[in-house]
Each structure stands twice: as C-alpha cells, then as structure tokens.
C-alpha cells in the first residue's frame, strides 16, 4: 500500500525542487530534460526519505540525483543520435555538481528570471512560473485557469520553446538589466496573486490557491532579495490585501465593498505582518509603486471602522503613486480619495479631467466611480444612470450584480 507522503517532506521537496531545477538548467541548458530529471529525483526522494530519513543536505542530494539522471539522459540521447553537442558531452562527462552548485547558490531566482522572460506573454509567463517554480502540475494549472489540460500543456511547451528561441541563456541577467527583469518577475507574481484574489466566490478553491502560491513564491524572492524594497512592498501588499479575503464576499457570493466589510473577519496576524514589513521598508528610500500600494492597503487595514479611515493620508499616497505610474486606475482611485477628503464635488471635478484619457473613456470603472460619487453628492437619479451604464460594460459577473443592486437600491428611494 502506498503511504501518504509525510507533509513535512512534501513541503521540503516543494521548496527544494525549483532550486535543484534552476541548478540543473544552468548547467545543462536543456529545460525540458532538466524538468524530467528533477521530477525523477523528487520521486526518488519521496520514496527514500520517509524510510531512511532526510539526508543532512537534502538539496545537494536532490541536485546530485538529478545530475546523474541528466547524464544518463544525455548519454542515451547521444548514443541514439550520434550528434551530441560538445556542451552536452562535457556536461555528461562531469556529472557531479560542484560544491558551489549544491551548497551555496539558490537558483530559484534564476529560474524565475527565465520563467518571467520578457519574450513571453503574461499568460505564458504565469503558466511557466507555476509549472517550473511552483511545481504545480499542468492539470492543476489548467483547472485553475479553467482551460483544457491539452491547451495548458501547449501553452507551457510553447513558452519553453519561446525562451529557448530567444537565445537568452539561462543565467542571471547582466547588472544593467537586473532591476528591469526583477520588475518583470514581480509583475508576474502580482498577476498570479490577482488571478486568485479576483476570482468569483464559490466552491472553486483552486483559484484561491493561486493567491497563496503567489504569496509563497514572493516570500521566497523576498528571502533571497531582502534589501529590494519593491519585493518587500509587493509581499506586504499581498499580505494586506489577502487579509481581507473572508470579508470580501457575502453568503450569496455577492461582493462587499471595503466600506461595508465586517472588519472582524480580517486576518489580524497577516495585517500585523504586512504593516510591520511596509513600516520597516518605506524608510529605506527608493520608494516604488508596490510599496505605495501596500502603504495604502495598510492605512485601510489599520482603520477599526470605515469612518476612521485616514483619507488625507490615502489621498497623499495616491498623489505620489500618480506621479510614479501612468495607470488610469490609480487616477480613478485618486479621485475617490479626493472626494472623501474634499467632498464629492472635488472628486467629480477630477473625473471630468480624466474624460480625455482614451483608456478610461469607455471603461466601466469610470461610470462606476462616477455613480458612487454622484450618490455621495446627493444626485441619486444620475447615480442610477451611471451604475446601470457601468453594469452594461463590466466583464465581471459579481461586479455586474453589485452595480445592478446599487442601481436598484437607489431607484427604489427615488
């Protein structure tokens, strides 16, 4: 009978697998074969460790077994095809990983750089990251994104091919590109988090797992790059946003806006961790967009009641964020914050100024925010019109339900 794998061994393997994979890819340059080799090594570990105990250096063990599998693979390939490359031969002839390869370097980051390669579309980078770094199966990723497994398998294999064809080798990016490549990694982690966080409520826990996977990976990047303030900022933002998850939807799956959430349901421990992290990060200087968003989330999370929210501080933070990034959603949120500080008229005035932005002109959020501000301004008739207009344009079913409910509630009072 097959014994269920000890949970601590399973967790350890999940942590070690991307590190070993990164090391093997770096040495052998063949991603697909490296993946198979590490998979086989993990299986061997899963069989052996529960019986014989975890080796003193489990990563070295895993890397060594994967290296041997790679060498076997290359020898059999070479024998069959007789056109082995020098690189592969050389690698096969020196199968033992060096001390550096097994002991000191953590190749998880290198693997992330490869998976979040600039040549990839976001969807491909997300899939490849979850597969190679997260260690999720293709079937799990397919389920999370509600596409057939065959489609997801193709997306992943094309992503690998694309990285290979781009000619950028698997190695840390040169110093002048490093910051930019790290931003790309953070963006992919942020997208994975949002994919999980913004999914509709329901029995599909798979998607919620995506948020936690993104948080797990971001925590690892933060551990590897403790002095990067934006990595810390993104991790804090995730902690502070995810802390509100349970309060975000009602019993019927309906969306509950921040102002009406039951704050007793917020995760206090996670808020404390996020607040502590952003508080030690901001004074370090080099403030970026993720840190500012985390700071805004922290201000919300620290208000015991909605009416205690420190809106002047949020307004100031959105002001800074707006100067840093040209994101139209930031401008909309800035208008809301301005309305909360200076009154609805001020917010509506700022919205009028945004009309010229082509990215917002026909966006449902523009109507939704206008409806919200018109309601605050005491013009329910116009608010209903804009709630309905927004409902007609949104691509989100829970949001459409929410907007139609707002319109219905207001029009009953007319």
């Amino acid at each position, binding site marked *: 009978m097959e014994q269920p794998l000890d949970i601590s061994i399973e967790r350890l393997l999940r942590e070690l697998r991307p590190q070993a994979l990164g090391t093997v890819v770096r040495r052998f340059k063949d991603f697909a074969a490296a993946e198979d080799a590490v998979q086989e090594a993990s299986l061997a570990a899963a069989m052996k460790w529960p019986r014989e105990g975890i080796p003193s250096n489990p990563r070295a063990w895993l890397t060594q077994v994967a290296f041997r599998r790679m060498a076997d693979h290359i020898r059999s390939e070479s024998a069959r095809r007789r056109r082995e490359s020098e690189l592969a031969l050389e690698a096969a002839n020196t199968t033992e990983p060096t001390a550096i390869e097994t002991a000191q370097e953590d190749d998880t980051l290198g693997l992330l750089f490869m998976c979040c390669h600039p040549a990839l579309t976001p969807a491909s980078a997300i899939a490849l990251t979850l597969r190679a770094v997260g260690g999720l199966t293709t079937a799990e990723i397919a389920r999370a994104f509600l596409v057939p497994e065959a489609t997801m398998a193709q997306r992943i294999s094309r992503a690998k091919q694309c990285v290979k064809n781009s000619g950028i080798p698997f190695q840390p990016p040169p110093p002048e590109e490093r910051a930019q490549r790290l931003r790309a990694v953070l963006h992919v982690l942020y997208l994975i988090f949002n994919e999980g966080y913004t999914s*509709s409520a329901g029995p599909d826990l798979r998607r919620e797992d995506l948020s936690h996977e993104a948080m797990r990976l971001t925590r690892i990047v933060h551990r590897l790059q403790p002095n990067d303030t934006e990595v810390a900022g993104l991790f804090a933002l995730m902690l502070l946003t995810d802390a509100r998850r349970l309060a975000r939807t009602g019993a019927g799956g309906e969306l509950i806006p921040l102002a009406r959430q039951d704050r007793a349901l917020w995760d206090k421990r996670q808020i404390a961790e996020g607040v502590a992290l952003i508080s030690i990060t901001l004074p370090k200087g080099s403030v970026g967009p993720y840190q500012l968003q985390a700071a805004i989330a922290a201000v919300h999370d620290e208000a015991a009641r909605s009416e205690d929210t420190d809106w002047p501080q949020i307004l100031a933070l959105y002001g800074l964020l707006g100067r840093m990034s040209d994101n139209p959603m930031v401008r909309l949120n800035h208008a809301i914050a301005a309305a909360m500080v200076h009154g609805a008229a001020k917010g509506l005035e700022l919205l009028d100024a945004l009309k010229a932005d082509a990215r917002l002109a026909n966006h449902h959020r523009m109507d939704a925010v206008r409806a919200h501000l018109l309601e605050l301004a005491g013009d329910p008739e116009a608010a209903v019109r804009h709630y309905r207009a927004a409902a007609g344009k949104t691509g989100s079913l829970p949001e459409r339900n929410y907007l139609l409910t707002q319109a219905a509630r207001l029009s009953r009072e007319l």
Partner: protein
Amino acid sequence: MKYILLLTGTKAEFDWYTKWSPQDFEAQAAFMHALHKELKDSGVLVAAEGLAFPDEARVVRAGADGSPVVTNGIVRGVKDGAPFVTDGVFPESKEFLAGYTIIDVESAEQAYKIAARVSAAPGPGGVPGNMPIEVRQIMNGAPEELP
C-alpha cells in the same frame, strides 16, 4: 480573458448550407480543423463545438409542477413595454446557433483577429464566406476592489 465566437444562421441559411458540394464541405471542414488545431497548439483554445441542425431544436419551459413543457417554437417580442412569449413555430427570421469557439486570449483585439479567421472560412467554390461572427466576452471573476 475568455471570449466566445458565435456562428449563427437562419433556417434558410442552414438549408442553403446543406446543398453545398462535397468539395465545398470538405474544404470548409479541413479549414476549421486546421484552425482549431492551430488555436490548440498555441495554447488559446478552450472549446469548439458544432450544434445539431435547428430542425430538432425544441424550447423547454418548466410547467407548474416543474416538469418540462417541450414546444417546437416560441415567438418573443415586446408589447406595451413588457416582454411577451407565445408558443408557435420559430419565426423565419430567427437566428440559430450553428457552432461556437471559446478562446482564452490576452485582449479583445486578439479575439477579433481570430474571429476574422473564422469568418474567412471558405464557402462554395472556395470563396471566403465572410460570415458574421458574434464575439462576446465570457464574464470573469470579481474586480480587484470596489470603491
């Protein structure tokens, strides 16, 4: 973002379609097969299905006890500001769904490009059919945070 590409036709159009030559059928089927394979290989295909002809289309509504009441057709309209429903045959002008393709893409523009490819499927004599393809976004999850 997921989009559904809908191909619809009236009964007259379905009748016309059944009279195509074998070569025309084959050319169209081969085209769609190749297109779907390409979409699958590029990791965007979610589903692609053809539907049975409308001859066998039935309309089902729940009876008073919840049991199915099956009819051959229905006429819908709006009268005096309220929608009405009457049993009867389908009107000649009714558009029936012939088939659909669901894709998972990065943008509406990418969905439009693929819809244009479907629209260009060959008709009689190998001439691109230029069929109208209705493109609709499939609703996704909740937004990030509400104001």
